[in-house]
């Protein structure tokens, strides 16, 4: 494995280190990283938790593509693997990047239900069809794989990025929500959806198979309809 190392305290600034380790083909890339950390080099640093693709901690570049290390098996990536941190955010140490910008962008789109008083002691009603309308974007695990795969994000640090738009979409198309116009106004700004150039990197990167580009297009269309 070739791993890009960065240690702010020891003047190691983005150099590749090679590690030869034995793996089972069914091992996850995360298992291989753990083997290195636990038995070869304890200073190797990365985020991880659930180890099965649902917590969103271990997004990183694996052979040049944004993946979750726990959702890729060694057999898929071959005998030589190159691992780098996500692009576009400041590297703090090895594979750990600063996520502040990511969560700040997420918070800008008001990612919570905005709705007036619900019925007392009963759920709001929502038809299965209305529920299905935003199902795809509820799957987001905030791993940042999409946002850091987007070339626009690399060069424009004002752009909210695909993940924030996905989370706005999740509420804009929820029949119970009343905050759509507010969110659409935010996404209609300079930093919003119009920066998207439909490159599809986000969709390719999503470990949850969310149709990210489609969600962004649906938000654009909602803005057009509103403008009319």
């Amino acid at each position: 494995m070739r791993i890009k190392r960065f240690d702010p305290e020891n003047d190691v600034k983005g150099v590749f280190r090679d590690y030869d380790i034995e793996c089972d083909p069914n091992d996850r890339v995360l298992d291989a990283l753990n083997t290195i950390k636990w038995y070869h080099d304890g200073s190797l640093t990365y985020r991880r938790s659930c180890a099965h693709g649902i917590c969103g901690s271990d997004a990183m570049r694996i052979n040049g593509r944004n993946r979750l290390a726990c959702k890729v098996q060694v057999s898929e990536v071959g005998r030589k693997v190159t691992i780098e941190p996500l692009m576009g955010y400041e590297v703090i140490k090895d594979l750990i990047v600063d996520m502040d910008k990511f969560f700040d962008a997420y918070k800008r789109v008001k990612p919570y239900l905005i709705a007036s008083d619900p019925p007392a002691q009963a759920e709001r009603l929502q038809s299965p069809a209305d529920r299905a309308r935003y199902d795809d974007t509820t799957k987001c695990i905030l791993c940042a794989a999409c946002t850091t795969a987007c070339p626009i994000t690399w060069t424009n640090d004002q752009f909210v990025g695909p993940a924030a738009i996905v989370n706005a979409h999740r509420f804009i198309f929820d029949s119970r929500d009343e905050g759509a116009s507010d969110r659409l106004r935010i996404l209609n700004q300079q930093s919003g959806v119009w920066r998207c150039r439909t490159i599809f990197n986000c969709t390719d990167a999503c470990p949850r198979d969310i149709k990210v580009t489609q969600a962004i297009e649906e938000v654009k269309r909602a803005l057009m309809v509103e403008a009319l």
Partner: protein
Amino acid sequence: MAYHRFDAVIVGAGGAGLMAAIQMAGKANVAVVSKLYPPRSHTGAAQGGVAAALGNTEEDHWEWHMFDTVKGGDYLVDQDAAEILARESIDAVIELEHMGLPFNRTPEGKIDQRRFGGHTRNYGEGPVRRACYAADRTGHMIIQTLYQQGIKHNVQFFDEHFLLDVLFAADGACCGCVTWDLRTGEINVLHAKAVLIATGGFGRVYKITSNAMAGTGDGVAIPYRRGIPLMDMEFYQFHPTGLYKLGILLSEAARGEGGILRNNLGEAFAGRYAPLLKDLAPRDMVSRFIHQEVKEGRGIDGKDYVHLDLTHLPAELIDAKLPDVTDFARTYLGVEPKTEPVPVQPTAHYAMGGIPTDNDARVIGDEHATVIPGLYSAGESACVSVHGANRLGTNSLVDLIVFGRRAGKHMLEFVRTTGFSELPPSPDALPQAEIEAVMSQPRGENAAEIRERMQTLMMDNVSVVRDAAGLESARAETQELKRAYRHVGVSDRGKVFNTELMEALELGYMLDCAEAIIEGALSREESRGAHYRTDFQTRDDANWLAHTLVSKTSGGLQIRKKPVKITTFEPKERTY
């Protein structure tokens, strides 16, 4: 060292911690500390559903839910707590919907419900649809929804801060905690009137587990080190259907939707053991059925696993209701569940035991339920006890939202009427010394090796089936590992994200959890729920209808008993 002061500090940003935080947000000065980012908490891994007797698809009553919880817990459940759980889950689920949780819906637009293990109609007559769900990612939707609410209410989060200690004033009241900012390496003292421990479980003490790598019992071990007892630690749930070798959870919802367990003869064996509920018998039982099949040579290929068969289910149903779990089988085992059976084995899943609390999540310090002022716990780290000797599927999420909410409400009242206790002198001295000890070992023991030995011995001797000889040897080896741990060292000398040091400290916490599990299991000479002793195969209500409290004392570990509260349902034999 940095000093902060809050009315209340919540440690752990899973379902219980966030539910509590939302009760207090805007009404008190509250901080939430997590060693992860909050939406990465392990609540997000929960799949199948959250039980509430809404009766949306068929008749149901909270009294039936309460009964199932008590019976499922093999009558070790405190029944006053079970009543609260079953009654208040109805309101709490509605509250989640009001917060925006995207539940699946019935044709009329109500929250849809499905079957789950051990949940029955009319006190055990047959399965009932009680689990409210959002596909097979109910936990994901809960953690996302609660985090969204946290943002909405401007909750102050300390992300990627690791718990090092809980602080007590001279009079014994809790007065804050010490955390370590992983990003900078700085130690923080959080002075508070109340602290809620909601750090979840410790499944990582076992080799095969569904738990996240973060599930290392930090918040459970620290109070235990400070003399607070742990309750019912011997009851550790093994979920019957973990992916073979990996332990990744395949939701019980797979069986709730019609999936069947089969042995190497293709036989649906669960009905032989549980004629009425079959594959939907409670988890402790189904895990033992699998253990027995394997022991009698009917594991697949003579190995220690069986098959979960979904091939007879309609493909559309699998796609609509079980998309994530079937994706796990494809991703990690290369098995297509629509056409092939999935290899599964029991996986360490959930701690019924933990920090003893009353029904308002206040931590209690002894068998007389003496409250420790200012200290609270809720969720998997706590033991109320609503799960008794075995938790029913979906009741973990119910526990989080019901008792997380109660914790938040009670803490809000508490901080409004209570002042700050004085911090002990040099509040960070102890954790600083612990860190220094690890950092200064030139060529210390390797934490990973100690951890692997612990995980293997817990799996071999303290899992689905136990006996005195195995437990005695586990006890001896754990003490040996604890001795080795005193010399654990790290190669990373840095301050910034020293996750090697973090993992070493987590190992120390896990060894304490393992010690308490073993001690409880040795003391309890009967079989009940998830605790099955081959040398004491029956339940012994005369001697053991009681909770165990294990505590560290100057004279070593001490076990005491605490009576079970029985209000409605007299203990009966547990058959399904």
